[in-house]
């Protein structure tokens, strides 16, 4: 996919680790200059270093996606540092907390999950729009199969990921005339949270893989990243308002 995104500039939120970092690496390998937007420099700066070590362009901006000034600053950073902004990938989401039915979820987790999902999607849409409209850009949200089928264990996570799908469909209709495409990826892939969960529960990985037709959990860079590259590229120029489940076939309900 090398060269598909030559000359493009992308922001990826939550790109200091997990799926966000995998997507950032893939976008950079495809030619984009990538802004790693992360809350913690100790995650974001090593992610930048890895991309640069491979000969690609990246920079770090500290960003709490729930704070308007941080989001505006991240967009400004992309333009100041790399000259333009074509692609926004909003991947960051606060930790969903331990599995629990909705009536037992910590209220602070609900607050944080809404803020990092719907609040942040609005802030990035608002801040990035002038640049995306100039460049025929691509706005990508990371949702989840849980946002389509619900989740008994992570009901708030499922709710906010569903809310993002509602936002993206309306935004796709709203921004179509501006030439901006809006899509979502619903992955199942190795993240720090999933790694922690499987370490705590040794049977979890086997159970997940048994329910996945392709028989394995996705890799953030090599399984999820290329789909982000595709959606961001001219190859997907006639796609908007869509959710691509990239989960080895685990969720087949679309």
């Amino acid at each position, binding site marked *: 996919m090398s060269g598909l995104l030559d000359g493009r500039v992308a922001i990826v939120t939550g790109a200091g680790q997990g799926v966000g970092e995998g997507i950032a690496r893939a976008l950079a390998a495809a030619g984009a200059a990538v802004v790693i937007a992360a809350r913690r420099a100790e995650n974001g700066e090593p992610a930048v270093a890895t991309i640069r070590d491979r000969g690609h362009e990246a920079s770090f901006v500290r960003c709490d996606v729930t704070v308007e000034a941080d989001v505006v600053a991240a967009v400004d950073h992309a333009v100041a540092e790399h000259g333009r902004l074509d692609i926004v990938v909003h991947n960051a989401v606060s930790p969903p907390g331990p599995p629990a039915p*909705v009536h037992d979820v910590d209220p602070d987790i609900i607050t944080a999950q809404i803020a990092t999902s719907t609040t942040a999607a609005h802030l990035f849409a608002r801040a990035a729009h002038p640049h995306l409209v100039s460049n025929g850009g691509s706005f990508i949200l990371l949702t989840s199969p849980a946002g389509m089928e619900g989740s008994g264990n992570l009901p708030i996570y499922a709710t906010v990921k569903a809310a993002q799908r509602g936002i993206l*469909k309306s935004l796709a*209709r709203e921004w179509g005339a501006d030439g901006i495409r809006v899509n979502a990826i619903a992955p199942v892939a190795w993240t720090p949270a999933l790694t922690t969960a499987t370490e705590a529960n040794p049977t979890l990985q086997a159970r997940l893989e048994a329910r996945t037709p392709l028989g394995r959990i996705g890799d953030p860079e090599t399984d999820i990243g290329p789909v982000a590259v595709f959606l961001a590229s001219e190859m997907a120029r006639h796609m908007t*308002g869509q959710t691509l489940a990239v989960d080895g076939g685990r969720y087949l309900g679309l």
Partner: protein
Amino acid sequence: MARRALIVGTGVADRIAAGLEHRFDIDRVPEANAYDLVVWADYPSVSCRPAPIVSLSPEDWANACDRPLRSAIDLARSVHPALATTSGTIVFLVPLMASAGGAGYTALAGLGEGVRILTKSLAKTWGADGITAHAITLDPHAFLDAEDAAGIAADNALHDPPLGRVPDDTADVAPIVDWLASDTAAPLVGSSLVIDGGLWMPG
């Protein structure tokens, strides 16, 4: 003894309440410790007016999407014991734009799709308590004024409903809500029903 229902919201919630008042004792705010039926349709007016996303300030967005989404979640959390007492039913009413999109309605669609999938999560865990949870997707007319609703239909290239008319919330939708709360609907779990006269037929 009459069954007891809690119906939260205004507008479409009022019309559903009118259709159920001969079947239930109805509260409009939570005050009982047992409910057979809870209906949520608490969409603020700011959510139901068209506005481009870039025109919405963070405060606008919070009022149109984030806070009512939190309210829906908090209501579900608060009524769990009252529904468990009766093995009751909770129903969320959702605008069509949540599933089909609507330019100018990003906040409403985010809110609506969030609560639509919330019902599935509730159904998955509350089934063990005998509680059923459902979402009903309604025509935009249930939530918007007539001109804005017509605009959505035109923007989304929706055909005229095969039913020949938009379903009436009181006469048509309320009896279906009533049925969802009945014993005969018990095997139906976590459903998303589209009651729009055939305006939109999802795949």
